[in-house]
């Protein structure tokens, strides 16, 4: 498996506070992705990156921003957390957009 580390693994935060989740990879993969997983919806793409400083939106990007200043790190920020953003967040990486993707262990975020 690709060396993908998500931090934190669990977080509880209050509505209206900013939250940043980190994804760190050691495989030098060009593509990185953030997904959220919710009951009844499966996995949905939030944002992805196709290189340093190159990012684009997925299907559920509202309320989220991302940054990628280094190949190995992809940050997901909730500017002002809402209860609807309570979810499990997964990071994934792939060499390019047409090859096998590998997932991190997930971050369980609870917004109260």
């Amino acid at each position, binding site marked *: 498996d690709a060396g993908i580390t998500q931090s934190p693994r669990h977080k509880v935060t209050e509505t209206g506070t900013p939250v940043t989740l980190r994804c760190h990879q050691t495989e030098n993969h060009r593509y990185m992705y953030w997904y959220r997983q919710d009951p009844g919806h*499966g*996995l949905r793409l939030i944002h992805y990156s196709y290189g340093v400083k190159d990012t684009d939106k997925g299907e559920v990007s509202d309320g989220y921003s991302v940054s990628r200043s280094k190949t190995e790190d992809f940050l997901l920020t909730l500017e002002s957390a809402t209860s609807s953003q309570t979810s499990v967040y997964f990071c994934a990486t*792939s060499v390019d957009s047409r090859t*096998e*993707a590998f*997932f991190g262990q*997930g971050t369980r975020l609870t917004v109260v």
Partner: protein
Amino acid sequence: GIQVEQSPPDLILQEGANSTLRCNFSDSVNNLQWFHQNPWGQLINLFYIPSGTKQNGRLSATTVATERYSLLYISSSQTTDSGVYFCADLKALNRDDKIIFGKGTRLHILP
């Protein structure tokens, strides 16, 4: 948009039984993967299988890209096979395409 249907949605089997999980796509299959999400939530890569057949121990998978479906076979099921199985198609990413996930098949293996 592109639709992915997985069947059956739920499956309960006795240990030792065999099973076939199916993934149908409404559009062409490009880079299909099968994942197992274990009861602890980890997503584990099973197969990367754009076409053809692959086997890994008790698991095997077949993708028929021209007919837009893929099958995952699990033989001699064990309780550790329990969890949710997802298929996903990784397409070239632009504003119209995205990585498409099915909603999964929940498998429960009884001891």
